[in-house]
C-alpha cells in the first residue's frame, strides 16, 4: 500500500502541486487526471523514486521509498513515455532480460505466451526496431503479463494502441487489481474497470501554475 503525504514538486521554477496527500491501498486503481502539463508525469516519476520531490513523503508499506531503495523497486513496475525496450533485440530477448533483472526469470514458454497474448505472435524473433509504433508499445506491455509486482505505475499506456490492444490492456489492469495489486495510471481516456476500487486524482490547471492542485478524490465501486 502506497501512502503519500503532503507531496510537492516543482519543475523549473513552477510549483506543480503541493500538499498532495493520498493513499493507494491494494485492489485499487488510481487514475491521475489533468490537463496537458498539469504534472501527471512528474508525479508518477516522483512516486517511482526517479525524481526527488521537493517536500512530503512517499511510503510503501510503512517505510519511505528512499529507505527501501532497491526493495521498493522490486515491488514496482514502471512504464513511462518511453518504451524501455532495446530496438536491436527481439521481443523475446527484451522480455527475458527484463524478467531476469527483475529477479524473476521467465522461461521461454511464458514469454512466448505473453507475446502471443499481446498480439505479437510471429513477431517474437524480429528486432523490435522493425516493428511499428504500436507493436513496440505492445512488446513493452507484455512485461505486464509476466510481472508479479504488486504496484504498477503506468504513464499513458494507451497511446498508439489499436482498439484490440486497448481492450487487452484494460483487462490486464483489471486482473492486477482483482488479484490484490495496485495500479496508478494516467490517461486521457476513460478506464472502465470491472472489479476493485477506482480513485481519481485531478491535478490543477496548468495555465494557472500558482493555484495549488484540487484533489477531487472520489471512490467508486
Amino acid at each position, binding site marked *: 500500500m502506497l501512502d503519500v503525504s503532503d507531496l510537492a514538486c516543482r519543475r523549473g521554477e513552477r510549483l506543480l502541486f503541493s500538499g498532495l496527500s493520498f493513499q493507494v491501498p491494494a485492489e485499487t486503481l488510481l487514475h491521475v487526471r489533468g490537463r496537458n502539463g498539469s504534472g501527471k508525469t512528474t508525479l508518477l516519476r516522483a512516486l517511482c523514486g526517479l525524481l526527488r520531490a521537493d517536500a512530503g513523503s512517499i511510503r510503501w508499506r510503512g517505510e519511505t521509498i528512499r529507505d527501501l531503495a532497491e526493495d521498493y523497486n522490486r515491488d514496482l513496475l514502471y512504464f513511462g513515455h518511453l518504451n524501455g525496450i532495446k530496438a536491436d533485440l527481439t521481443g523475446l530477448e527484451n522480455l527475458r532480460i527484463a524478467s531476469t533483472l527483475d529477479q524473476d526469470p521467465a522461461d521461454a514458454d511464458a514469454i512466448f505466451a505473453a507475446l502471443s497474448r499481446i498480439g505479437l505472435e*510471429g513477431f517474437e*524473433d524480429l528486432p523490435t526496431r522493425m516493428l511499428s509504433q504500436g507493436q513496440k508499445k505492445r512488446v513493452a506491455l507484455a512485461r505486464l503479463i509476466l510481472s508479479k509486482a504488486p504496484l504498477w505505475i503506468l504513464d499513458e499506456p494507451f497511446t498508439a494502441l489499436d482498439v484490440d490492444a486497448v481492450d487487452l490492456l484494460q483487462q490486464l489492469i483489471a486482473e492486477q487489481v482483482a488479484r490484490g495489486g495496485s495500479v496508478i495510471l494516467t490517461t486521457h481516456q476513460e478506464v472502465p474497470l470491472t472489479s476493485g476500487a477506482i480513485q481519481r486524482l485531478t491535478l490543477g490547471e496548468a495555465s494557472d501554475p500558482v493555484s495549488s492542485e484540487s484533489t477531487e478524490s472520489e471512490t467508486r465501486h
Partner: protein
Amino acid sequence: MMEFFSQGGYAGYVWGAFGMTFGLLLIEVLQLRSSRKTTLTRIGRLLRLRAPRQASTGADPQRGTSGPTS
C-alpha cells in the same frame, strides 16, 4: 627439396605472402559455400513454415528473416 622450401633463406617472407594469399582465398571460398548452404536451408525452412500455416490459419508471420549482413 629443402632448398625449395627455404627459398634462399627468405622462407618466412615468401611463404607468409603466398600462405596468406591462398589461405584467405580459401577461407573466402569456404565462407561462400557455407553461407550459401545456410541461406538455402533458412529460406527453405521459411517457405515450408509459410506454406502449411497459410493453408490452415491464413496467418503468415514472416519471422526471423533478417538477412546475413556481409
